[in-house]
């Protein structure tokens, strides 16, 4: 019985991230449009976009290889698996022990590896520019993320995300300088990894400023739908991650009653809305950065992560 309920939570979680991801993207777009005094597309527009793309035929460049056709599925699968391991509304995930935070980061790195390769597959200049800039940003964001994970792992004495969330929800951790730094760094990394303003503009069509869009320029139809969905899932993953580590009190424990799970679910949607709203406000308030100013921005996250880790090496109580 216990196993079945745990399995149920895990399955629901996997479907939830898939179903809620386009909603979050649509919500952020809507809020951004309202802040700019536009009416904006309806919140469910991303679903419509994905369905429309699925129905269209795929146009593949003449010299595209199998990498080009396989990559969307690999990117989607790795991102989905990573997202399924981050607690959304309950911590009692059946398979959370199979991969820890470091593995989740590495899964996202796998998705990026194949996305960058797909960008280079057709052999166009835009694909190359996107891939080379993506790996440049990743070469700063990934170590920053690992150091942030170190900070949390040193407090919780485990890199296991469920252990971290369980511990942080008990109030026993208290306010810590190192965790404050980790939060700030995590937000910067989340913005960089998801290609939001000021790092990259998800709505851009100005070729020389784009990173993610340049890599997927050659994609169309169902392949593009998979990549768009994976991008939405990744945004949801980072928002859930911030939610489950820094606002863990709404999570239902592994053996709490169904009511707690239900409350956790509703509060989770509330968290998504709040964090999505903050993201939209932030994106509206600032301008996109020049590519070579990015190292200062993302490097800041690296420094914050390093400082946080260093503080915890000096004293576990900081």
């Amino acid at each position, binding site marked *: 019985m216990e196993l079945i309920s745990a399995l149920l939570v895990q399955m629901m979680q996997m479907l939830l991230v898939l179903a809620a991801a386009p909603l979050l993207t649509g919500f952020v777009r809507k809020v951004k449009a309202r802040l700019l005094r536009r009416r904006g597309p309806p919140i469910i527009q991303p679903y419509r976009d994905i369905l429309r793309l699925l129905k269209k035929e795929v146009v593949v460049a003449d010299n595209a290889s199998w990498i080009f056709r396989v990559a969307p599925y690999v990117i989607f699968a790795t991102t989905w698996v990573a997202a399924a391991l981050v607690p959304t509304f309950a911590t009692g995930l059946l398979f959370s022990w199979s991969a820890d935070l470091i593995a989740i980061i590495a899964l996202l790195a796998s998705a990026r590896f194949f996305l960058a390769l797909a960008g280079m597959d057709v052999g166009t200049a835009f694909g190359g520019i996107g891939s080379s800039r993506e790996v440049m940003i990743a070469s700063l964001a990934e170590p920053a993320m690992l150091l942030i994970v170190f900070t949390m792992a040193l407090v919780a004495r*485990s890199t296991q995300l469920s252990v971290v969330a369980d511990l942080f929800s008990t109030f026993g951790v208290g306010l810590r300088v190192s965790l404050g730094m980790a939060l700030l760094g995590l937000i910067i990394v989340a913005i960089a990894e998801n290609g939001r303003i000021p790092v990259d503009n998800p709505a851009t069509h100005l070729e020389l400023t784009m990173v993610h869009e340049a890599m997927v320029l050659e994609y169309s139809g169902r392949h593009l739908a998979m990549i768009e969905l994976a991008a939405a899932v990744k945004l949801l993953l980072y928002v859930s991650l911030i939610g489950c580590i820094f606002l863990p009190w709404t999570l239902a424990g592994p053996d709490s009653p169904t009511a707690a799970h239900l409350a956790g679910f509703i509060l989770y949607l509330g968290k998504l809305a709040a964090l999505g709203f903050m993201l939209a406000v932030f994106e509206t308030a600032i301008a996109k950065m020049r590519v070579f100013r990015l190292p200062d921005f993302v490097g800041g996250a690296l420094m914050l992560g390093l400082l946080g880790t260093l503080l915890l090496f000096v004293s576990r109580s900081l």
Partner: protein
Amino acid sequence: MTSVAFLMLCAAALLGAAALAIACARTHAATSMVYGTTLAITVTAALVSIAVLVGLAAPAGLVLPIGLPWTGAHFRIDALSAFFLAVINVGGAAASLYALGYGEHEDEPHRVLPFFPAFLAGMNLVVLANDAFSYLLSWEFMSLASWALVIAHHHDPENRRAGFVYLIMAGIGTLALLLGFGLLAGADGNYTFEAIRAGTRTPLTAAIVLVLVLIGAGSKAGLVPLHAWLPLAHPAAPSHVSALMSGVMTKVAVYGFVRIVFDLAGPLPWWSGALVLAVGGLSAVLGVLQALMQDDTKRLLAYSTIENIGIVFIGLGLALAFRTNAMEAAAALAMTAALLHVLNHSLFKSLLFFGAGAVLVATGERNMDRLGGLIHRMPVTSFLFLVGCTAISALPPLNGFVSEWLTFQAILLSPDLSQWALKIMVPAIGGLLALAAALAGATFVKMFGIAFLGRPRSNEAATAGEVDRFSLAAMVLLALLCLITGIVPGFFIDAVAPITRQFTGGALPLQASLPWLTIMPAATSESSYNGLLVFLFIAISAMLAVWAIHRFASHAIRRGPAWDCGFPDPSPLTQYSGSSFAQPIRRVFLARTSATHEEVAMPPPGDTRPARFSLAVSDPVWTWLYLPFAGAIEFASLQLNHLQFLTIRRYLSLVFFSLVSLLLVLAIWS
């Protein structure tokens, strides 16, 4: 017959194969005969050493009445040497299998065939040796055999230069090891490892030995700043030998380091761990940054070897630091991580060198900027190369990730160290390791993306064909091993447990008994990773997505010209090249250093000449350390040259004064 006697016979058989190769190197069947023989011998030796490692055969020793007259030659196999013998012989078997096909393309087989088995024999003997004399003799034999292989294609002046630099560095390395063994043996001069282990020495002496070994073994392994020869010499050799040098010989050096520092030297001061950590961290980051800047496929792989050796030494440094603080479990974890990375790196680096060799056979090119689009013409090689790239970039579920994950877990245990210097240093090393992992991903996106994807940049790349079956078989074997060590790492962790128990006093909990083949390095931290499940999850969700798409979505597919925002350019030169791909990272990490020199020659307005851009990337260690050092030696030798033109009277006084000063030194010393 004992295991050690059998392995000695294998080494002797390899030497016999070398003799056979000399006898018949110019005949037609020599290539397949020699590589077939080495394949058979290395497979047998690998099986025996694995049997010793997992406890099916007993460790044993052997004394041969050769070598120094009053000691004889001692050989022994224990868990540590069995592990490294397995790495050597698996690598050797894969290289022999590969060479059955690759060797047919060799222009001058008589320059390669005799030295290949000799090189393998040398590496086996180093690991088997149980006294300082046989150890150093085998070490030199291994160096010289590999040197002969480096200059096999001696018509190329680059290769001759590489051989020269390698010979000098190998000489310095052996000299340092010789001095190290001298200090270990002490005044009694008993050179067997048993006697050295039993002897006592001050921590200071042990620390000096550590520094000497770091120079001796570190120069062979390619630690920064002693790495300068490696990116010259490893690519110069034929590709299967490059794979052996990068994938296996550097591991023999790691063996030397572990054997002397962990086993023979005795208790070390706490800062020895910090020293090893610093060298390892520096090697990891400088190695991968230089790798990213290379456009030569094999040189890129050679620099990436420096990075991976850095990761291994980070693990060993952590193990030393934990051991001096009596934290056995943590030391065992760090050492397991290092040993697993030794195995993993030998697998994927050999695979990648084989792939680079296959490209070399198919196109005759090592320069990435003249390749491209090979995925269409060499589909199998491309796929296997991609497996190697994913593994070395530390992406799950392949094996590179497992060893880096274990190293990270070891770093997370180090706040409990008691020395402040280590406490401050370890987070920085963790940051360097994370940076190296991310940059390695970028490096191999570049390598695969430029060489195998896109459109062909030269005729050779456009007309390449798939390579022979032997080469492919060797690559398939290594790719499978990469996957297996990635998804069931628990068995390999358990296999190295006797080694960590012997040298750190602790071992990881038995992993094979954990449910679902999970690995969990320390019972206290609850961190766990399950490669098998991650692999299955990815496979299942990808298949689910494919199924759903093909069930519900449109099937229509149309081929058309590339879109490229409406302006596709037919010239393949408009694609990104290797150096343009690396440009953003170069600008971020190396912009203010002297390592890169960019020059734009822009003609004045009205002039119709094209603008020219040139880029030179140099190794800062070479410019700032090696060249001044070589200059100083040249200056000193010019000064000393005057001593050759003295009168007899002055010679006599020179001899007299040197004698007096030496006697004075002796008098003050005692």
